[in-house]
């Protein structure tokens, strides 16, 4: 921060509320040029607000501080970083305030991201493999070593926070390791849509098309956000076709099976199935433990395995929550200087786990399961033994055993006063069925996800 600007902020701190300072003044980045002081706002919104409410005052304080007679004050949207957005400029002089929408420089270069969007920290080396993701990982490795040849497109789907994005970045990074000259672009579908809209607004849609059709590998994350956006889907459809035709690699992720995305055109759905579609399931216990240990190692912390098991047993929703809980334990350990033991971890995660237990009750499980299978909660308590009722009842019992700390007799009691052996039988039956029947396994995983989120 420039010293002139620092003096100005110090003066403003005495005049404005903390909220005004922290919301509008501190986000500004000051650059002192010989003939101008440029104030960069992170977005148009901050720029407008500062211009309307504080600009006159800023200019007069700057005049006071420095006798700013010759130097102009410019208020712009922009940054000094390479990922800068379009430099919308508001030109301001000490006496006049004038905002213009005129883009500065060549708009295409600032519109299209100059970096490949890849995070170098996501690699195959630090991707923890388990039963739940081994197919997706193997397919990803294939694609990385045979770009455009193996599976095209590669479509990875699964719930949030299970490692789709990690795999995608790993593919991109691996391609670049093998072929440093390759042009790889990673972006979220939200960004694709936003960039396309900007390109349309600035009349540079042809550049946009050329840019995305010139890549060796296009990696688009979370394509479910294309749903309902017809213009973007249309644009993407043509880009997709052009890439596939010339054997350039396309890799896509989605939170569900492509055919299940509502609001996505059928022609896209069918094309997504041209290559290979692989699922990532929530990691099972051993994989969750391995993930925790890998993250601990990366962060330079010692994580005893009993602590890893303790966290992994209680947090089963997704990897981000696992990581969040682990970071919480680390933060407490760092702050207190105490080593990470089982008791320490229990104490650090006390409020988080108490909250979770409050959310997952047998009642809640019964309600959720009944809704899922479109039956009544009373059916779960009843003595009816038709399969359409028995299966959900067994599923609910197995979930209750998995997600709560209730004893088997307690669970039996909560299901119309059944014996604990019935609960035990239900749990075994469901485990068996999950191995044999993909549909039942998927139902179980869906319910687990809903209940533990």
């Amino acid at each position: 921060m420039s010293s002139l600007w620092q003096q100005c902020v110090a003066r403003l701190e005495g005049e404005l509320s903390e909220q005004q300072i922290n919301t509008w003044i501190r986000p500004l980045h000051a650059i002192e040029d010989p003939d101008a002081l440029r104030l960069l706002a992170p977005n148009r919104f901050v720029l407008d607000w500062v211009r309307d409410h504080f600009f006159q005052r800023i200019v007069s304080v700057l005049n006071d501080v420095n006798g700013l007679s010759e130097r102009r004050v410019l208020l712009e949207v922009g940054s000094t970083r390479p990922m800068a957005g379009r430099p919308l400029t508001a030109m301001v002089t000490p006496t006049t305030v004038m905002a213009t929408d005129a883009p500065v420089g060549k708009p295409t270069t600032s519109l299209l991201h100059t970096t490949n969007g890849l995070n170098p920290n996501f690699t195959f080396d630090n991707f923890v493999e388990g039963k739940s993701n081994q197919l997706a990982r193997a397919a990803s490795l294939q694609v990385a070593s045979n770009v455009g040849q193996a599976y095209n497109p590669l479509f990875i789907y699964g719930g949030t926070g299970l490692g789709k994005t990690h795999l995608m970045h790993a593919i991109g990074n691996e391609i670049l390791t093998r072929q440093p000259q390759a042009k790889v672009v990673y972006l979220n579908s939200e960004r694709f849509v936003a960039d396309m809209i900007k390109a349309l607004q600035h009349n540079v849609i042809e550049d946009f098309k050329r840019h995305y059709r010139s890549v060796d590998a296009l990696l688009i994350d979370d394509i479910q956000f294309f749903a309902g956006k017809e213009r973007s889907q249309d644009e993407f459809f043509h880009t997709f076709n052009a890439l596939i035709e010339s054997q350039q690699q396309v890799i896509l992720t989605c939170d569900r099976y492509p055919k299940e995305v509502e609001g996505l055109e059928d022609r896209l759905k069918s094309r997504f199935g041209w290559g290979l579609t692989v699922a990532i399931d929530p990691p099972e216990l051993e994989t969750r433990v391995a993930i925790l240990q890998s993250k601990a190692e990366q962060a330079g912390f010692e994580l005893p395995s009993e602590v890893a098991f303790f966290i992994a047993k209680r947090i089963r929703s997704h990897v981000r929550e696992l990581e969040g809980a682990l970071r919480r334990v680390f933060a407490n350990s760092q702050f207190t200087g105490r080593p990470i033991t089982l008791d320490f971890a229990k104490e650090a995660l006390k409020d988080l786990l108490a909250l979770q237990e409050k959310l997952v009750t047998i009642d809640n499980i019964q309600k959720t399961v009944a809704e899922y299978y479109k039956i009544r909660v009373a059916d779960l308590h009843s003595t009816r033994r038709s399969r359409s009722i028995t299966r959900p009842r067994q599923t609910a019992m197995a979930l209750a055993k998995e997600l709560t700390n209730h004893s088997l007799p307690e669970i039996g009691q909560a299901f119309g006063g059944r014996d604990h052996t019935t609960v035990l039988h239900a749990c075994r039956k469901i485990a068996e069925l999950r191995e044999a029947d993909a549909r039942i396994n998927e139902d179980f995983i869906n319910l687990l996800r809903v209940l533990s989120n």
Partner: protein
Amino acid sequence: MAEQLALDVGLREGMSFASFLVGDNAAAVETVRLLGKGGGERQVCLWGGAESGKTHLLHAACAEAAAQGLRASYLPLDTLAALGPALLEGLEQLDLVCLDDVQEVAGDEAWERALFDCINRLRAGHTRLLLAARQAPAGLDIRLPDLASRLVWGPVFQLHALDDAQKCAALGLRAGLRGFELPREVCEHLLRTHARNLSYLMSVLERLDAASLAAQRRITLPFLRQILSGED
């Protein structure tokens, strides 16, 4: 919100770490302090009821960041959400983003998308994120699973409101920053006989300070009674 605003604009010591009574929130405060300095965690989420200190800590983190020459932004979504999610654009250019009252945008499709996209952009760069909400992330009515999972990406801390003894200590701390001592019996009397919310107590402290300066008198129990009876 009106109560919190009173706390915001009224007190000249500001919402810094120095004026924050840690109480039972030591781990959270230290983690946020480190985050403000540009170290430690990438993302922290704080939650707790009214007057548990969320807003204070977010402002303190911004001030800490500014002291390190970092760019920070404090965005209270209870007042700013109405202006639209475009507010989140370009925040990846900053070093620290503090989003207060996240519960205000839960359930709003456009906002949830924008926040999801914003967290992705912050993560792709170097920007740290400090979130605060009334409820724990799991208790917020977030519809977008992709956003819900991102809210718990870093450590989540519940902030515990101060008990009476800690409120006395907080008043004492504030008085100390102003260069006077608040006798214990004055504090206890206040808590016994008046509303016990912190913003009200701080406003009484403010009045006492001004009155004692004006009257050139020390703050004593009789003086407190006189001031409060004069205003009632």
